[in-house]
């Protein structure tokens, strides 16, 4: 089995070890949560690099363990019954056991209490997720079949570009291309020009679409929203300082033929490096606008590359 996969250029990446199918079992889900830094360990949610993603992970594990607890009690009772009350071992049925109002009230109320315990932190997290006020950088994200457009606002106003699947992945993903996906760096998760954001900054995305419904997702940021034509959806994330690097995601709303081939890559830079990047981008835009300047080559689309 291959053991080292993905994200080779991740600045904070570590070799991720995937357990082999031979080790399949519930054990895998029970130890979930003990591993992983910036990304998922291969069988659980990513622990994340933003407060929101971390809290999502925490709530996920809390609810998971509550479910495990309930499962131990309920499945335990079932298994005990299956072992203890067997016809083949002469068990005599107790046909007078018809109902018990007391017991039934108890096992109605206990689940209600457990649900309230889950709902309170969940409600608190919803309120924080939806609070997009006081953002320091806004980016308009537009979905197309099958690429993304990133148009910067605020201090980076004027920076506007398309982001399309990388050439390597695009050749390899053709039907019977003969290229081994394992030989392609970040197969299906790499683009020609990634979104760039500063760390330690509250970034707000305004999502919409030009054609069908898409959805923008970077698991490590805990950031997912649909991009819907005629609507503007909002989300925000703030990557921890020190977690600069490259983060990857995919469109998650079926959007036609190449739904699987419109990845999302976000490069997180320090605020200073981000400023430099913005200056470079603005200079390039100015250069392109000069009379006599060659128009910049349009970003290659998935279609163009496929032809």
């Amino acid at each position, binding site marked *: 089995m291959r053991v080292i996969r993905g994200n080779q250029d991740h600045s904070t990446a570590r070799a991720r070890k995937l357990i082999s199918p031979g080790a399949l079992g519930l054990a895998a889900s029970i130890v979930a949560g003990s591993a992983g830094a910036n990304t998922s360990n291969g069988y659980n949610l990513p622990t994340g690099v933003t407060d929101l993603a971390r809290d999502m992970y925490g709530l996920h594990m809390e*609810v*998971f363990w509550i479910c495990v607890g309930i*499962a131990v009690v309920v499945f335990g009772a079932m298994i005990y019954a299956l072992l203890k009350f067997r016809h083949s071992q002469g068990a005599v049925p107790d046909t007078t056991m018809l109902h018990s109002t007391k017991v039934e009230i108890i096992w109605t109320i206990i689940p209600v209490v457990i649900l309230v315990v889950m709902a309170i932190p969940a409600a608190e997290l919803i309120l924080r997720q939806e609070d997009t006020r006081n953002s320091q950088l806004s980016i308009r994200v537009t979905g197309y079949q099958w690429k993304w457009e990133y148009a910067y606002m605020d201090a980076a106003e004027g920076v506007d570009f398309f982001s399309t699947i990388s050439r390597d992945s695009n050749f390899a993903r053709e039907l019977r291309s003969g290229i081994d996906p394992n030989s392609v760096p970040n197969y299906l998760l790499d683009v020609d020009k990634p979104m760039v954001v500063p760390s330690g900054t509250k970034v707000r995305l305004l999502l919409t679409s030009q054609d069908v419904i898409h959805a923008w997702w970077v698991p490590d940021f805990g950031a997912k929203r649909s991009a819907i034509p005629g609507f503007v959806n909002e989300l925000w994330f703030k990557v921890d300082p020190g977690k600069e690097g490259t983060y990857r995601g995919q469109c998650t709303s079926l959007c036609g033929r190449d739904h699987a081939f419109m990845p999302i890559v976000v490069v997180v830079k320090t605020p200073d490096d981000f400023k430099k990047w913005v200056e470079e981008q603005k200079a390039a835009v100015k250069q392109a606008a000069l009379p006599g300047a060659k128009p910049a080559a349009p970003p290659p689309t998935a279609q163009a590359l496929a032809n």
Partner: protein
Amino acid sequence: MAQFPASDTAHHTDQAHDHGHDHHDQPATGIKRWIFATNHKDIGTMYLLFSLTMFFIGGSMAMLIRAELFKPGLQLMDPVFFNQMTTNHALIMIFGAVMPAFVGLANWMIPMQIGAPDMALPRMNNFSFWILPFAFTLLLSTLFVPGGMAAAGWTLYPPLSLQTGDAFPMLIFAIHLMGASSIMGAINVIVTIMNMRAPGMNLLKMPLFCWSWLITAYLLIAVMPVLAGAVTMLLTDHFFKTSFFNAAGGGDPVMFEHIFWFFGHPEVYIMILPAFGIISEILPTFARKPLFGATSMIYAIASIAFLSFIVWGHHMFADGMPVAAQLFYMMSTMLIAVPTGVKVFNWTATLWRGSLSFEPPMLFALAFLFLFTIGGFSGVMLAIVPVDFQYNQTYFVVAHFHYVLVPGAIFAIMGAVYYWIPKWTGHMYNMTLAKWHFWLSAIFVNVLFFPQHFLGLAGMPRRIPDYAVQFTDWNMVSSIGGFGFGLAQILFAIVVIQCIRGGQKASALVWDGAHPSGLEWTLPSPAPYHSFTTAPEVK
């Protein structure tokens, strides 16, 4: 529900025998028996065989999907064809396999359980069945039209679904036909249960399977017209320049999602409530004691049915929703866990201090109990809005709904067939082969779907024909499980066909623990053509 002491049972059996001898209305011969069928058993048989056929067609599509996903890279099919397979696998399994199977079981069992000679509206019954082969021929024939089958997912979200080729109007007409068939089936169930119960069988004495179907029938009548409205608006948007869902024309694509899921969520319960009824019949028989808390089981089904109408927003959390709506849909969805929990606890209490034996129907019912509960746990997790953003549209969702539909609905249907088929055919079946079918299904269904939880959590979106290489291992495991599960179902077909053709003679009671259940066990095996020609009296 209704309790029949041994003496009563014997009495009814005698009565039924008498009628079995003196009724002279035999089935018509040849093909006419089936084309002009008005008998509930003939129509039930056709529904069940139709469902089995669709199960294998939809299953073959799933095999193609799992074959393509066996390893990264595209080896077998174009992404468009892959999307056609996922879309039509869902449509065929939901509308062609699961729903007709439950209607078939209702046709066979409701008259026998309530002491009626037949369904109340036999000609409509004929019509509601015979619509289906035409509807699905139309749906499957879209494979050969320009543009191929619909490929926008079974949810048909516009604007993507409006990009469908010539299949589009055919698909919508097929959905209208399926909806009409379901509504007629539901009307028939309600009219039969409301009017044709044997004297003395008040509603609270009615078997749980009939109760679950009565509530399901009301859900069907409430939501199938909503689906018909939604797809009709898609049709006019596509062909008549309306803008119901077209943002550029002042319409609203999210409105489609609201309308669709107002149908779609109750639809989910349409596929599971009759399964609850079946499990509530099987467990008491093989535990040899009555269902625990039968009345609260009815209230639980009714509560789940009510809640199913107010939770549709949980399918759309990532599509943008006010905070108040997110909180409402989260809490209403979590509430469903309460009546569902009551059901699981009551089933467990039914096993408690029982005398359990493990014939094939019981094995399927027990697997349902464990594996449906796992689907319930992932359901609670998905209800938690803030984390749902991470689960939404990933394989975690695929794992969740397959756990409730395959070891949930499908296992219940198979359990029901193994439970009642001796009553239908008069023959016992090959128990060893049926147990093999069970164990292979139960093992492979977990190999197939459990790893999909990991894939989703690790970040694999659903509805993709190709994936990043870190998802390879679990996809391989899942595909192996898929092929194993698919092959195991051939055993099911063999057992059923053998049982129809012959076998050891079944007694009237079939299962020695069958006392606590409905009136069907008072009839001889096979049951007479017109079940009860005079109504039995229920005390």
